[in-house]
C-alpha cells in the first residue's frame, strides 16, 4: 500500500481549501451581494475546514480497507542507516580487508 506522508496531507488540505473557499466566497456573494460578508465567511471556512480535512485525511490514512496491497508491501527494510552506522561498518570492513 502507498503511504501518504503528513506533509502531503497538509499540502492537499491547503490546495483543496483554497479552491473550496474561492467557490464559497463566490456563492455567498451571489446570494448576498455583500463583499465583506462573502470574504468573512470564506476566511472562517478556510481555516476551520482545512483543519477538519487534515484530521479526516489522517484517519483515512490509517484505514487499509479499499487499498490494493503489493505482495511485498508487508516485507520491508527496517530503519535507515545513520552516517555513524555506516562509519562503524566501514571500519569493520577495513579491518577485515574487504574495503580499502
Amino acid at each position, binding site marked *: 500500500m502507498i503511504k501518504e506522508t503528513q506533509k502531503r496531507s497538509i499540502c492537499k488540505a491547503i490546495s483543496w481549501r483554497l479552491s473550496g473557499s474561492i467557490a464559497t466566497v463566490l456563492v455567498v456573494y451571489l446570494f448576498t451581494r455583500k463583499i465583506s460578508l462573502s470574504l468573512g465567511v470564506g476566511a472562517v471556512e478556510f481555516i476551520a475546514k482545512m483543519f477538519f480535512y487534515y484530521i479526516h485525511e489522517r484517519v483515512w490514512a490509517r484505514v487499509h480497507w479499499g487499498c490494493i496491497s503489493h505482495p511485498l508491501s508487508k*516485507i*520491508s*527494510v*527496517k530503519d*535507515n*542507516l545513520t552516517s555513524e*552506522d*555506516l562509519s562503524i*561498518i566501514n571500519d569493520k570492513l577495513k579491518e577485515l580487508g574487504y574495503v*580499502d
Partner: protein
Amino acid sequence: MKTFVLGIDGLPYSFLKDIFEKGRMPHLAKMFKTYGAKQINSVYPTVSSVAWVTYMTGKNPAEHNIFGFADRTPAPFQLKIPTTQDRKATTVWQELSRQGKKVIVINVPLTYPPEEVNGILISCFLCPDINKVSYPAKLSSYLKSKDYIIDVDTRLARESKEKFMKLLHKAMEKRFEIAFELMAQDEWDFFQLHIMETDRLFHFFWHDLDAHGQYYTEIISFFEKLDNYIRELEERLSDGDRLLILSDHGFCGLKAEVQLNTWLEKQGLLRFSNNGDKRAFSYEKDSICYSLLPGRIFINLEGREEYGSVKKSDYAAIRKDIKQRLLGFIHPETKENIIDKIFFREEIYSGPYLENAADIIVHPENGYDLKGRTDNGEIFVSTALNGMHTYDDAFLCAKNCDIKAVESIKDIKEALCKTA
C-alpha cells in the same frame, strides 16, 4: 516437513575431506556418506556478500545488484557500502514469509538492516549495534541477556591470536545456543543459521593448519566442537526434516595481497596528480580505469564516470588491451601467474543491474588476493591475514533434498523451493 540450513562460511570441501581422513569430524563425515555431498562453485567475485546474496535470491549479481562489500556510484564518484536496501531480488525467506511460512534466520551476511519476515531475522556482522540487529527489534534484549556476539572483533587477532581464538569459540557457541533455544521455543518452517567464525579463523590461522602450527590444537578443537553441534542439530530434527549444510566458498593459503590499483598505476592506466594525493580515487581525468576490490576494474568511461574520459567508441578495444596486460601479470620473483581468469561483465552476468557491474572482473590464482588500495606504492603486500577465498571448493551436504542439479551456490534456492 521443516527445513534447516546451516551455512558455514568459507569451509572448504577439500579441508573437510582431509579432516575426515584424520577422523576429526566423524558426524559430518557420516552425513556426507549417508546423505550425499558435493563440491560446488562460488561466485565471481568470490566474497561472502555476493555469494550469500546469490544463494538467498538464486539470482546472479546483475539481477540482485550486490557486487562486493564496497561499491561506487560513478557520478558524482562516491564509495558506498551495499546493504539489504541495495538488494533488488527477493530472498528465500521473503518468499516463504509471503506464503505464510514461519522463518527464523540468524547471521546470514548482507541481511543488515534486518527486514521484516514472518518470524525472526537476526542480521549479520555488518550491524554496528546489538539494539539494531534483529527483527522484531524487541528480540535484542533477549540477545543481550544471552551475551550474543554479532561478530568477533578482528582487531584482537593482531593483538593476541590466543584471545582471538577463544573469542571465535565463544561466538560459535553463542550462535548454536541461541539457535537451539529458538528452535525449541518458536514456531518455524524454515530455519537458517550462519556460522561466520570459520571465515575469520581461516583468514587469520590458515598457516597454523599444519600439524606443527602453533594453534593447530585449538583449530582442531574448534572443528570438533562444530562437529558436535552438527550432531546435536541433527538429533533435534525429525527424520523427515530437510537439513542442508553448506559453505559459500573455499579457502587457501595467502602468498601476497596484490594491490591492483598500484599495478594499474604502474601500467600507466591509472594516474594521480603530482601533489601526492592518492586518497579515495582522486584520480586524474585522463586515467583509463580504476579498481575496487576484489578484482573489479571500471573503465573511466565518458558520460558514465564523473571524470570519464574514455570514449564509448574506444571501450571495447581498451577492455581487450587491459585483458592482454593482465594475462601477462606475473610475480617478479617467483614468476608465477597472478591472474587466473578475466571476464568481461556480460560474459558472467545478465540482468537489469548489469550497468552497475564492473567492466572487467578479474579472478586471481590461488595465493594472490586482489586488493584495491591506492596509496601504498607497493604491488605485493603482506598483512596479518594469511588465508584467502577460493572459487571452486565450497561444499553442500543435503538430507531429504535433491541436489543433483546443484553445481554452484546460485542453484541451491531452486533446489530448496522445488521441494519446499
